[in-house]
C-alpha cells in the first residue's frame, strides 16, 4: 500500500469517526485544525485506524504524532 492509499483509508476513518462524510484532511493537520478532534476522539481515531489498516501501533507512538502525516508515516513502517 502506498502513501496515497494509506492517506485515503485514514481519511475514511476520520470521516466515519467524526461523522462527516465530506471531511477533507491534510497531512499537516493536527487536532487544532479539526474542531471535533479532541482527546477522546483521538483515541477512537487510533483504534479505528488500527482496525482499518490491520496495524497495531506501539504504546509509545499513540500520543506523540505531531500531525496526520506523522501518523501515516508510522503506519507505513508497519505495512
Amino acid at each position: 500500500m502506498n502513501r496515497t492509499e494509506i492517506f485515503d483509508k485514514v481519511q475514511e476513518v476520520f470521516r466515519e469517526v467524526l461523522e462527516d462524510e465530506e471531511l477533507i484532511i491534510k497531512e499537516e493537520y493536527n487536532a487544532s485544525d479539526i474542531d471535533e478532534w479532541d482527546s477522546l476522539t483521538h483515541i477512537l481515531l487510533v483504534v479505528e485506524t488500527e482496525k482499518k489498516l490491520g496495524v497495531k501501533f506501539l504504546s509509545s507512538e499513540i500520543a506523540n504524532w505531531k500531525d496526520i502525516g506523522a501518523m501515516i508515516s508510522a503506519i507505513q513502517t508497519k505495512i
Partner: protein
Amino acid sequence: MKSYLKILKNKIDESLNYNKLKIALLSDQSTQFISKVIHGLGIERLLDISVWEAPINQIEQQVFNPKSDFNNKLFETVIVFESTHSLLDKFSLSNKKSDFADIQFERIKVYTNHIIQNSNSKLILFNFYELNDKVYGNFSAKVNISFIFQLRKLNFLISEFLANNHNISILDISTIQNEIGSDNLMDISMYLNYGFILSLDSLPFISKNIIDIILTYNSVFNKCLILDLDNTLWGGIIGDDGIDKIQLGELGIGKAFNNFQLWIKKLKERGVILCICSKNNEEVAKNVFINHPDMKLRLEDISVFVANWESKVDNIKNIQKVLNIGFDSMVFLDDNPYERDSVKENIPDITVPDLPKDPANYLSFLYKENLFETLSVSELDKKRTNLYQTEYERVKSKSSFTDLSEYMINLKMVSKVERLSSFNIPRVSQLSHRSNQFNLRTVRYSEKELTEIMNSENQMGLVFDLSDKFGSHGIISYVIIKKVSKSEFFVENWAMSCRVLERGMEQFILNYISEFSIQKGFTLITAEYIPTKKNIIVKDLYKKLGFLATGNKYQLKLNNKLNLETKIKIKDE
C-alpha cells in the same frame, strides 16, 4: 454484537417514550467511553440513561465524604468498577499477601454497605477479571500467597457476601472475559496511555450486561421460553424420520441436543416457563416427550404445548393469552430463519435470537446472549410450571360450567390475609416488580422499602393469597396504604397477579379493606390510577368498585363495611 462506534452514534428518537434513569459510575479507571456506550446501548432498549462519572480513582472518597458530589445527587443505580490492574498494584505492595483477599473484601464490603445504607440506589458491583502473573507458574493456582489465588478468593468472597443481598448485583466481568477472551477484554496500550484497561471493543458486551441488570430493576426481564421442536430440541424431523431416527442422546450431534435440553431443564427449574410451538402433529410430537428414552424434557416440564399447522405468529399469540404475560418477557427459539423473521416482524416485542446454524454452537451462543437475567430466586419460581398446568385444568373445568357463578362456588376459593412480615416480603417485592398489568400506581418496592413500611407508623401493607380446590396460587396481591389523617388513608399501591383476574379477588380485597378501615375509624379512602403502557386493564377498576372519580384520582366514603359480590371466603387461621 453491534460495534461500539455504531452504539456511540445512537440518538434519542423524540417520537418514542424512554424511561429516564440516572446512574453513577465510580471507578479507578477513566470512564468516558463506557459511560457513552452505556448511554448509547440504553437508547436501543428505550432507556434514556444519564451517567454521572465520579472523578477517576475516588471511589471511597466519594462514598464516605458526606459533602462529595456523589452524596449530593440521587441515582437509581450506582455502578462500581475496580480493575484487576489496580488490585494487582495493591497486591504487589502488600506485605500480608496471604490475607490479601480478606483485607480487600472487608474494604469493599464497607463502602458497598455504606452506599446501600445511605441511599435508595441499587448497586452494580463489578467482580474482578482474572489475571495470573505466574510468579509461581502453575503452582500459583494453589499457593495462597499468589495473586491469582487471592483474586479468585476475593471473587468468591464477594459472591458469597452478595448471595442474599437483593440491592447489590454483580456485573460478572470474569465470565465476560471467559466469553470474549482476555485479549479482547483488555487493551494495555490504552491503559498505559489513557488510564482505562477495558478495550473499546469489549464495552458493548459489558454495557449490555449492565443494561440487562438495570432493566431487571425496572421489572423488564424474560419469564418464558417458547421452543420449536425439529432441529431445535432434537436433530431431524420427527414427522419424517420417526421417533427412532431423530438425533438425540449420547452420540455425535445428538449430544448437542441432549446438552441443550439439560440447560433448558435448568431454566425451567429456576422458574422460566417453557412452551412448545411447533409445526407438527400434536400426538406425534408429544409421543417423543413421553416415549423417547433420551429426552431430558418431559411433558410435565411444559406449561403450554402447541403443535399444529397454524402459523407460529398466531400460536404464539395464543400462548401469550393463556400465560397472560407481556410479549416483552418472552423468548422464542427456532432453527428456521423464516419462522424467526415472521415472528420478529409480527410481534416486535418478543426476543428472537438468531440461533447459529450448527446446533453444536447453540449453547455457547445463548450463554453470551444472557437472556434470563434475574435479581432473585424464590420458591414460587420453582412451582410456576405447575401453576400454569393447573391453570389449564381450571380452563378445561370452566368450560363444563355454563353458569360462571356456579363455577366460582365450585372452585371453593379461600384467601388468607396477612400484614407485611419478613416471611412474605421477598414475594411481595417480587410481585411489585413483576406485575405490570394489574398495578394501579406501578410503585416498585424493594425488600428494604417494604421492611421500612412494615415498621412504619403511618404506612401498612396487606398481603393476600388465594387457594382453591385445584391448589394454591400463593401470594397474589398486596395493598400498601398510607395514613393521611385520622379519618383518611391513601392507597399508595395495589397490585395483583393476572393469573387470578376475574375471580372476585378485587371485590374480596376491597370488602376486607373496608371492614378493616371501619374498625380503625377511617371513613375515607383515597386512591389513584397512574396510567402506563401496560396497566390499561385497571383503568376503571376503582370506578367499578364504587369509588367516585376526579380525573385519575378516586375517593370512597365509608359508612358501613362493603359487601361486594364475591365467592372468595376468608381463610381462618
